[in-house]
């Protein structure tokens, strides 16, 4: 199963190495990891997508992350409402006469052409994993030259009320 984690970490030298090293050592397979500044000075937010075997492994991942001195907060977004986005840049072979066709094709994805070359166009698309995969498949017949993807970044949705179950679950983690 895929586990999506959002971490608040201290913005210190080595913190990315600490987290990725932990996943390597414990044998958890990272699918994507993104990191950037958060709303708080000195803290970064990391989004990690990890492939875990079962719920026990999922708990272990959370606990091991929590144990890290530089990790301030661990939120498991897997089963919670969240907004999650990834950005992809896709360079596609495109002769001049194909460009308007590609433009039409990508429009429903709210993707756009960022750069036009003699023989290719570079497309920017933002969205969930499925949407990006779908667009890539549609573009494949034109000839995909390069893809760069950021990996997923995510935030939990604002919740109106926190259930006592959730609070208990979080308390048992600490």
């Amino acid at each position, binding site marked *: 199963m895929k586990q999506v984690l959002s971490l608040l970490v*201290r913005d210190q030298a080595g913190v990315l190495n600490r987290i990725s090293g932990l996943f390597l050592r414990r044998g958890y397979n990272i699918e994507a990891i993104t990191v950037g500044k958060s709303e708080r000075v000195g803290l970064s937010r990391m989004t990690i997508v990890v492939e875990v075997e079962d719920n*026990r492994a999922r708990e272990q991942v959370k*606990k091991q992350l929590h*144990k*890290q*001195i530089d990790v301030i907060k661990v939120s498991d977004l897997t089963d919670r409402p969240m907004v999650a986005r990834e950005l992809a840049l896709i360079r596609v072979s495109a002769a001049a006469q194909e460009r308007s066709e590609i433009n039409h094709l990508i429009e429903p994805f709210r993707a756009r052409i960022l750069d036009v070359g003699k023989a290719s166009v570079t497309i920017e698309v933002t969205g969930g994993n499925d949407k990006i995969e779908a667009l890539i498949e549609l573009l494949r017949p034109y000839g995909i030259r390069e893809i760069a993807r950021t990996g997923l970044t995510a935030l939990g949705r604002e919740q109106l009320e926190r259930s006592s179950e959730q609070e208990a679950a979080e308390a048992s983690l600490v």
Partner: protein
Amino acid sequence: MAEKTVAQADDAAYRAKDERTGSEIVVQALKDEGVDVIFGYPGGAVLHLYDALYDAGIAHILARHEQGAIHAAEGYARISGRPGVVIATSGPGATNLMTGLTDAMIDSLPLVVITGQVGTHVMGTDAFQEAPIFSMTMPVTKYNYQVKKAADLPRVIREAFHLASSGRPGPVLIDLPKDVTAERAPYVRPESIDLPGYQPTTVPHEVQLKKLVALISKAKKPVILAGAGILHARAEKHLVQFAERTRIPVVHTLLGLGGMPYDHPLYLGMGGMHGLVVANRALYEADLLINIGARFDDRLTGDPLHFAKNATVVHIDIDPSEIGKIIPTDVPIVSDAREALARLLSYPLENADSEDWLNTLSAINERYPLWYTPDSHMIKPQEVIRLVHRLTRGEAIITTDVGQHQMWAAQYYGFQKAHRWVTSGGLGTMGFGFPAAIGAKLAARDDTVVAIVGDAGFQMTMQELALLKEYGLGVKVLILNNFALGMVRQWQELFYAKRYSESLLPFQPDYVKMAEAYGIDGYRVQDPFELEQVLTRIFTDDAPALVDIRIDPQENVYPMIPPGKGIHQMEGVSPSEAGTLSPRA
């Protein structure tokens, strides 16, 4: 940054007068943390630091190899309960600490380790004696630092001691570039510590404790598994009281030995691969398993599928990540062991309905006691340990490496008191026991310290013999010499058709001459009838001594859970069954 106010400027001017070098800050901070001994080895990158130590008035033990220094610090930490402090230079000095750091990490020993580093201006250029210690030690330390400004040192050292010794203890490393040790900065010991990501839970949830109390009153076959967490929390007296009040028998892990006195009627002995039959049977058949401060290591559980499979499992641990890691747990209790036990003892605790169970266990123990076959021509290692127990009344500090001698010591010493046992448990480090004994002796000068080592492991760190005479440390070194890497030889005998691949050591140095060369008394004993005489002699005073004890080279450690088997599948449980262990599938 806000503009400086006049007051701040004044303060800065005042502090400037009090500025010192990074090295002087380190030395003062160590003093402020109450450090009374440092284990270390100098080198280029720590020259400034050693210069500051020259007349600092802190004792420094000059090991002969950095690995010796860090194992000594581990022994010191294990006995004193305070962080062991180590200093090594950059590059090879620091990489030689790797084994000790990993050992301390897995056995939860508090260390503060300072490594020199090349200057910040050449870092990353493959400079002379440069090694990437910060990234190399990340996974084998509880936390580590690389300090780039002398002004950060007061905070870093304060945090390092706090992190090493609180929560689940562990090693903390500070990598210190040479220029930072010369840079000047003010020193004020920070009053508080700001580590928002580090707030260990030490006090248990009342709700969880009450669940445990209810389970105890219903249990018919309860057992307590007590690990080193009991000892780290200094909770051994609470453990005894708790067991007595609830009438629940106690099994110790290897590292938990000493928590219960060996002759306590509720003590079943050590569990695990070479544990007592009764201890493992109790773990196997229990209906309630209360784990206090143990981490269900694979050498304890055997195949986890068979471990405590009918039991309701309660796990008290200060490290939440240990709970549910190996064995599914019904009642997790995140807490310091002493806090949890003290609270439990304050409740109106009912005892378990355990009398039938205790009788059953007692019958099992009578049927399957520890056994060995005495021999009038050859010294049996078990007899050596029993004799050491008798001569030291079960009160000596015993240190070991890993392997057969370690298991015999664990099985036969019979610890009367807590905090007397220093062994490499999780990592299983050869060469640990002897330097650890040096550190233990420094932590407990008035106590008898016995390093029980094998001939193979001793040869890994025996250069530290120089320290006994130099520092007047009355460590007694007993080499259980079987001319082999005993445990490797045992496994090859049992599971590899007696193909003794590189496990025999037919050539041995003359340990008696070696002892003499290092200025201490050396003895060799081969005759079982001379053993007592020699051991009695070495225990009459507090002088260092080394005894090369030639033991039966064929002797194996029994009983044993063969690899891959469950805790109920012990073999070699009686003399008639030894040597018939099933070959590995």
